[in-house]
């Protein structure tokens, strides 16, 4: 029997705005399955986003949804979680939103280790504005603002998150659809700030400029570059050249922020 996604979708809100071939819909389905796996009560689940194609996701989900300003999702979400720690807080957005304009909020959410799950849909481009390069656009790639090739080095989101203090960091791809919900669910169940980077494609503004002849070519790239962490452990550096590790990349236990603040309250009250 087909999976029932519709129970989690707001009536009348589909079709979504995403282009044919975009991976965002695959990720949204993975998110819905993960929410089901975790038995999330949608009344007590906030889904917060910034601005961009990926950030339109919350509007489709039947939950407490907050579509904020560009780059600010993690900070809005921090306010929600801090004020009402009993809520499950999910943040969704793209690579530009999360790591360029929102980079400061992103690293500080990681540092605080506040119990939220941040799903970054990384398609390496600013899609909504027509394909300008983002901090995750490969060096040398073509974008509407790098027609001579991108001179910028790229962020490794997972390394950034680990360095900033996130206690659960995982990476998947839109091609490996069956893994997405497992990674997100594990992130939700983890106590602390979880970052789930999902490598994604944007055939409309990235693929066309960068010699991907079809969506299938873009998906095939995701399939080819992904190496599960367990498999990577048996590979040589030469074999790993140009590959990207997928799966759970980092997991540690560290005090969670709202629990730490609960201790502050106890100390202030002399309890």
């Amino acid at each position, binding site marked *: 029997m087909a999976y029932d996604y519709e129970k989690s979708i707001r009536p009348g*809100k589909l079709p979504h705005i995403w282009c044919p071939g975009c991976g965002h819909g695959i990720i949204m389905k993975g998110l819905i399955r993960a929410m089901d796996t975790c038995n999330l009560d949608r009344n007590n689940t906030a889904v917060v986003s910034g601005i961009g194609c990926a950030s339109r996701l919350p509007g489709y989900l039947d939950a407490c949804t907050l579509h*904020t300003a560009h780059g600010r999702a993690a900070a809005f*979400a921090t306010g929600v979680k801090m*004020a009402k720690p009993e809520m499950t807080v999910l943040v969704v957005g793209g690579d530009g939103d999360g790591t360029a304009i929102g980079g400061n909020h992103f690293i500080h959410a990681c540092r605080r280790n506040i119990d939220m799950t941040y799903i970054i849909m990384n398609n390496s481009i600013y899609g909504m504005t027509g394909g300008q390069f983002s901090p995750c656009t490969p060096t040398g790639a073509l974008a509407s603002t790098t027609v001579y090739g991108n001179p910028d080095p790229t962020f490794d989101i997972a390394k950034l998150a680990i360095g900033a203090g996130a206690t659960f960091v995982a990476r998947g791809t839109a091609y490996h659809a069956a893994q997405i919900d497992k990674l997100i669910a594990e992130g939700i169940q983890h106590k602390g700030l979880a970052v789930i980077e999902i490598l994604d494609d944007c055939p409309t503004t990235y693929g066309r400029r960068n010699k991907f002849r079809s969506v299938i070519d873009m998906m095939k790239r995701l399939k080819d570059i992904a190496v599960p962490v367990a498999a990577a452990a048996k590979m040589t550096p030469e074999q790993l050249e140009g590959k990207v590790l997928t799966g759970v990349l980092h997991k540690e236990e560290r005090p969670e922020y709202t629990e730490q603040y609960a201790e502050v309250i106890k100390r202030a009250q002399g309890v």
Partner: protein
Amino acid sequence: MAKKVALMQGNEACAQGALYAGCDFFAGYPITPSTEVAEVLSIELPKIGGKFIQMEDEIGATAALIGAALTGAKALDSTSGPGMSLKQELLGYACIAEIPCVIVNVQRGGPSTGMPTGPGQSDMQQAMWGTHGDHAAIVLTPASCQEIYEETVRAFNLAEKYRMPVQIQLDEICAHMRERVTLAEPGELEIINREKPSVSPADYKPYDATKGMVPPLATYGSGYRFHVTGLNKAADGFPTTKAELVDAEERRQIDKVMFNLADIQKNEEYLLDDAEVILFAYGSTSRSARYAVNELRKEGVKAGMFRPLTMWPFPDDRVAELSKQAKAIVCPEMNLGQMVREVQRVAQGRCTVAHIGRVDGEPINPGQIIDKVKEVL
């Protein structure tokens, strides 16, 4: 029973007023000369189970404020000059999404870093027009520690009642001077809380204004699942580009303030009955202006003072009346001409409108005001 009185700084009075109003969430970022508001609340909020969070920057602080407000919190944020410039983006978000919250701006000089420890009143037009797009603003300008305490309570009440951000514009002098403040007993001052929806979650629309210009606001985590966005939206909260819906919403969000001026505006009128020269003054500058009025009266000059406690929406009607009565309106401000523009706009040439501006980090003294009055009369 003896009233509880305390000697406190303006910034402390602001924090105490917030607590009286039911503030249970503070997000901010350290900046002189506003930091004491944050310091006091970092101590006091956890004592009552409230939350204090120091964010990574001023934008993040306002973001957290809005997020908290959606969970039902009564939230405060304090900042100064450059911090207020950063907050403009999300002040606009709070306007369009109709989020009740209070932002205190302790004004210093500028632009940019300017003189962080010196007083200024140079953010008065920014308070109204700083964020992009058409919107309404409620901006309060108290002038004493007692008034800061009480006006902070009023700021929360207005934010809750009109479901919008309210700004308190202090200046460094008011914020750092110490005065005796009589603290209100529980129940003594009115406390207004936002209207909650009376319809079921299934029927709830967060911007349904059919029963009043201010739609009830539900709370995240209370069984109401709704969508909030900074995009223009329809009554159900979802984005729309339909011209007639966008237009109606934009206008309603301004009209909810402009149709309730009697409830929102508040002024002090000092010796205005027979006044021929009127000082239009606010904040710490009004304290020099009051002294100047008293001195001028001793010399037989019919001087008076009009002091807005609600600066925005601007008291157009009353200032227009005064411009018919007075020979001159003199506006002392610690800026090079901000609110005087509004006075000129409203006076429409019916009387002389003069400005005394100072941006050297020193207060405007009564002598300067007296000299100017004698010059224009």
